[in-house]
């Protein structure tokens, strides 16, 4: 099966006043049509940056190397104008931070219509949007279209943003922290909305989240990032049952349901990432080798990958 989107050796650098900072380090990842893939990791692990490289929406001080292939086309080579035809139409974004992701001075209707602007065959765009809004359990869609963002709660805004990504019927939907800052009922609404959208239309979904629970109930496969590197890729059930990387294991143990065992050590400083395996200062399995060498990306089972010497063939 051919992947819909593949990241090939993606690295991403930001020039800051402290020097150049590498947010993403040589990440390769394939996404297949129709699946829901979760990308998890703590803040600063590079997961959101990786998502935005596909759309070329990073800020001006960012530099990307590697290749992003979408339907066998290379995306990083496209001009801004060509990219405009990909954005929203082929690949859509559900941005993070619903509070600031909607334009405060424009009606919801105006902002949603921009997302379906390219669907020329659609006659009744408002009706179409209303049916989408109903699908994510809004009871008064027409009234909602006429309202402004400040009149809505955080959960409502996030659902609007979900529609904004999905209504354009893209091939791929990138959801960046879709549940950040939401309370439990709102989070449930958003997860339901995302799942329904993808299952009904067969849209491929890349969910970027730090919420393990959301990843568990929503995703088919999950990738784990740490300090800019992909450290594990696994299907959801086996990741939660038998995590392949010590970092994933520590993450799982830190969950409230697992006893909230805190992870040792501090989050890595991106300006001074530890040598070898970046996780070694916090890892209970670490050896000399982890300090000196970067562990290889190893397939240790059926579609189970990890970047750890525990699974490396030579050890």
């Amino acid at each position, binding site marked *: 099966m051919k992947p819909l989107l593949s990241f090939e050796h993606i690295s991403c650098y930001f020039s800051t006043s402290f020097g150049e900072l590498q947010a993403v380090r040589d990440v390769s990842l394939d996404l297949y049509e129709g699946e829901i893939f979760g990308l998890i990791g703590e803040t600063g692990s590079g997961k959101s940056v990786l998502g935005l490289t596909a759309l070329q*929406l990073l*800020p001006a001080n960012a530099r990307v190397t590697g290749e992003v292939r979408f339907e066998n086309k290379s995306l990083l080579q496209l001009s801004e104008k060509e990219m405009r035809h*990909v*954005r929203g139409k082929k690949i859509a974004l559900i941005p993070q931070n619903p509070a600031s992701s909607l334009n405060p001075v424009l009606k919801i209707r*105006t902002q949603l219509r*921009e997302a379906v602007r390219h669907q020329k065959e659609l006659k009744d765009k408002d009706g179409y949007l209303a049916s989408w809004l109903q699908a994510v359990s809004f009871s*008064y869609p027409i009234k909602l279209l006429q309202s402004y963002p400040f*009149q809505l709660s955080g959960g409502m805004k996030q659902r609007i943003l979900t529609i904004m990504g999905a209504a354009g019927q893209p091939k791929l939907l990138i959801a960046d922290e879709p549940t950040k800052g939401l309370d439990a009922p709102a989070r449930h609404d958003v997860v339901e909305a995302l799942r329904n959208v993808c299952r009904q239309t067969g849209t491929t979904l890349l969910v970027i989240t730090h919420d393990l629970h959301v990843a568990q109930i929503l995703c088919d496969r999950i990738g784990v990032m740490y300090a800019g590197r992909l450290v594990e890729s696994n299907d959801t059930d086996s990741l939660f049952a038998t995590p392949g990387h010590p970092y994933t294991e520590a993450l799982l143990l830190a969950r409230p349901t697992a006893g909230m065992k805190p992870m040792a050590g501090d989050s890595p400083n991106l300006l001074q990432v530890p040598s070898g395996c970046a996780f070694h200062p916090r890892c209970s399995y670490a050896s000399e080798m982890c300090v000196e060498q970067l562990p290889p990306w190893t397939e240790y089972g059926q579609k189970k990958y990890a970047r750890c010497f525990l699974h490396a063939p030579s050890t």
Partner: protein
Amino acid sequence: MTGRQKLIGSICTLLGASLLAFVLGVIAPGDPALEVLSMNGLNEPTEAEIAAKREELGLNLPIWKQYMHWLGMVLQGDLGVSYITQQSVSAELIQRLPITLSLACGALAFAIGFGIPGGIILAMFHNRWIDYAGRAWITIWTAFPSFLNAILFIIAFSEVLHWLPTSGYGTWQHFIMPSIVLGLGTSAVLMRLTRAAVLDILPQQYIVTARAKGIHMFILMLRHVLLNAFIPLITVIGNYFGGILGGAVIAEVIFSLPGIGRFAVEGIFRRDYPVMQGYVLFMACVYVLFNTVVDILYGLIHPQLRRSEVLK
């Protein structure tokens, strides 16, 4: 603030301005009774005649009664009679008002039409040479004396290039140079504010959202960036219009435009106090009216002010 509070505020400001104008008349040197008598041809009136006139004009009443009386007259459109031209002050001012208004509106149009697009361009070329040059331009024009500017313009465009008439009044060409001279300082300030506002908005999350939808750059700038940039801008445009209205005097004097500012300056030299009072009142009215219009516009752009209903 609700519309009603705004309206009350505007009325208060106007009443206050009328009080200021009234006080001007009170502290002005000279006896209004004498002035009126001499206007009637009595150049050496007797004590009794003066006293009678004072009584007739109500100058012996307590000061607040005098104010109420005066305010009543003003509200009926009677601003008194000019000591010099012996015509009704309000008629004189109304006749000249269109000229001052055209000049001020021309200046404002130039300031907005030049300042806002300029600011956007500077923001789009942030930290490139256009931006640096633009910022130097802004600093120079915010600090440049407008009368000097007017003189340089006359030399350049009228006397050397012969493109525009030097001074006077008649055709629309007569308004070009005064409007530009008057609006140049404000345009520089608007340019700086627009640049700052756009630079503030470009990294916002909702701009990323809009770009992610693949909309055209033009629509992005117009609908998403500019509309938001207008919110901080529109409030200051109201303030700066005051500067333009006040500064109109200088342009009117240098370019010999017969507006109310020049009339007031002539009045000052001839100690024609009713004209000065009328001038202050007229300017305050125009200014307050303009700011009311700006408030309405602000409400139209800023949805939060328009409706506070929250959906459930």
